[in-house]
């Protein structure tokens, strides 16, 4: 009923291979974009924008980055938080050296710095796989976090040891710092995330994505087919770190406004990995679903007791949130071990044939 595809004919190869081959999907996606770009900034209050949507989008972008590495190429990484940090610190250094340059340029440029660092720490992936690679990336996590705390050049010798974000403008409108409106920052984040998610979804569907998936499924076979593992794996590290680095730069500049090295600790790496696993390995949509489950759900749960008139006290609410979130994660993984994206795919398949399942 919702998914009646009668009359939708594909007359070209391109149409058949589109990101959204079904018209209803295109309409739905268009609606989501309209809501995201128009309705939310117009109707949302600051809490929704600043504490729900901006972090959700930033985490989604970082999860897409990690998904490219872990989900598509099969390289397990525990260093994603550190690469976010590289993006953030690079953006901080660049924007303090050249404050007059458009901040968006620096956010994207810091992705390149993160990318270079990612390639360097990706070198061991040629020799080791699986858990061993996870340990190697763990070294990146600890080493880079140590740098953020120890190398005072990175934080411009601030006595607080933290990086602080001043006011930067884009077309005369402040986008960072305390004077930037939440809706402005939200729109900048949204634009970057939508553009980068679109690029990612095209990369993974094309030649490069297929190379990565071949490497993931069996690297020896891929090598025998003529895929150069060195390039494929390092490219995955580079692209993944670029995404993660941009997410990190946006996290500090467009969300937190200041950051200590602790903001990029191992917990954040785990959180991103959980987002990718729960959302669905090897799925762009999964990154968004995972970020929603890990970031947005606890906020909703925290608001729930007050909403139904229960006065539990902040600590009890926090404990309950932990328990319920944990239980829900277990529930979703038991119901569908391949993640929320797979759950959505199955649901969609059923909707397409409903009400006449065969």
């Amino acid at each position: 009923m919702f998914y009646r595809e009668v009359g939708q004919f594909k007359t070209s190869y391109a149409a058949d291979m589109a990101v959204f081959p079904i018209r209803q999907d295109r309409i739905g996606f268009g609606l989501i974009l309209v809501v995201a770009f128009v309705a939310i900034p117009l109707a949302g209050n600051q809490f929704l924008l600043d504490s729900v949507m901006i972090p959700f989008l930033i985490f989604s972008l970082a999860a897409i980055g990690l998904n490219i590495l872990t989900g598509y190429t099969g390289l397990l990484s525990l260093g994603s938080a550190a690469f976010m940090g590289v993006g953030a610190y690079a953006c901080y250094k660049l924007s303090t050296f050249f404050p007059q340059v458009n901040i968006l340029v620096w956010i994207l440029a810091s992705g390149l710095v993160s990318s270079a660092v990612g390639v360097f720490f990706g070198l061991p992936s040629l020799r080791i796989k699986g858990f061993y690679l996870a340990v190697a990336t763990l070294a990146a996590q600890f080493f880079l976090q140590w740098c953020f705390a120890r190398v005072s050049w990175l934080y411009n010798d601030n006595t607080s040891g933290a990086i602080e974000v001043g006011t930067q403008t884009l077309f005369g409108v402040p986008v960072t710092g305390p004077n930037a409106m939440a809706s402005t920052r939200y729109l900048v984040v949204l634009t970057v995330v939508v553009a980068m998610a679109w690029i990612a979804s095209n990369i993974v569907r094309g030649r490069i994505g297929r190379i990565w998936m071949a490497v993931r499924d069996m690297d020896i076979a891929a090598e025998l087919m003529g895929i150069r593992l060195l390039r494929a794996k390092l490219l995955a590290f580079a692209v993944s770190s670029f995404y993660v680095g941009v997410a990190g730069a946006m996290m500090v500049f467009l969300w937190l406004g200041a950051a200590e090295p602790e903001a990029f600790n191992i917990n954040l790496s785990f959180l991103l990995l959980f987002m990718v696993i729960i959302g669905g390995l090897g799925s762009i949509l999964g990154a968004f679903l995972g970020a929603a489950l890990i970031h947005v759900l606890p906020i909703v749960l925290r608001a729930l007791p007050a909403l139904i008139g229960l006065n539990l006290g902040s600590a009890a609410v926090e404990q309950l949130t932990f328990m319920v979130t944990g239980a829900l994660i277990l529930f979703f993984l038991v119901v569908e071990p391949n993640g929320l994206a797979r759950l959505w795919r199955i649901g969609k398949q059923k909707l397409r044939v409903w009400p006449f399942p065969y």
Partner: protein
Amino acid sequence: MKNTKHALKVLSGAALALVLVAPAFAPAATDDSIYVPLFTYRTGPFAGSGTPIADGMHDYLTMLNERDGGIGGVKLSIDECETGYDTKKGLECYDSVKPKGPVIVNPWSTGITLSLIPKASVDKIPILSMAYGLSASAKGDIFPWIFNPPATYWDGLSEILKYVGDGSIDKLKGKTIGYLYFDAGFGKEPIPMFQDLAKDFGFALKLYPVAPASMQDQSAQWLDVRRDKPDFVVMYGWGAMNATAVKEAIKAGYPMDKFVSIWWPGEADLLSAGEGAKGFKTLNWHGVGADYPALQDIKKRVVDAGKSLAAKDEFGNLLYDRGVYNSVLIAEAIANAQKLTGKKVVAGEDVRRGLEAIDLDAARFKALGLEGFAAPFKVTCADHNSHSATFIQQWDGAKWVKITDPIAPESDKVQPLIDQAAKAYAEKNAGWPARTEACDSKS
């Protein structure tokens, strides 16, 4: 599968609806109350330190509501938000309370404070970071919205060094001092000053950083302490780090009376270490215990009435009383604001003026039912800190014993650093607004 799908749809629908309407239902400040949010942490690795402070803050304000019907006849609407000492969650708390018109914010975390400092002047919400946060924010002319009385970490450091040097830092010449610190903004801030002092006064400084992630495992640091044999160890720790440090010091056989901490360890940290913790010293600036009329009022009207979350043994302990002290400052600022503006229901701008007018002399403390609770101090427009003298107290195995008179900070060392750091902060954050807020006090 179908059921799951259905459940999922219902769930996500409900979730979306909730997010959109949640703020509308939350208890907002009404016209006849003053909204005071408290950022607290009763969960996570810092809960040991955070819980008594949260209870102290909450109970004193609740007591004012019960006893006096609030401040100046206006009820306080007290609202706790759990931050878990996490900067991201702290910002979430800030965003969630902002629409309700908070008159003051107490971040209780240096990380959260750093993120909020630039927002304060824009959102017109003053920040009270009592004896923590950015030391440089003591400069009222550069940070009109930030208050960190009664002493900064730099003051504290000079006071500790004066104490271990028997009254003057000069006597430390040739000695070795170890610095065991929480390796984040809070513990790192004193290092430049420490190094300068080491150079000026000719003592050796050994640094022992404790990473926040591994604060419950300090064996490596204490191995170094054993090797270096410093004459004194100075500690800047928080949460589980304090308790662990004391335990490790006992294990390493380090003499407790040479182990001096900044003002954050509480009773629980020492009790868990057992008998061996006897002799441990910390700085402090206020009374401990419940022998004050105001504390008795809290006991009668809040704790015994079942309106407090405080455990029996927690009431009146060091960090509980520090929470009370924090709330005394909040209440004083609100009362001052009412006096200054003549309004009953004050807003953030008014409370900022109220904070600048804080003048807690001995008579005022007595009027508050806290006679002799803390040394008098005064906030001015230029000095948001007062750089108070603090005293050393020693743990006797069961309670704190005050062992010195208040030790004044080494102002000629601290003040230039504060001036310089404040100036550097304003310069690095290009476009830092110049102070436009008028000053109320006559002085």
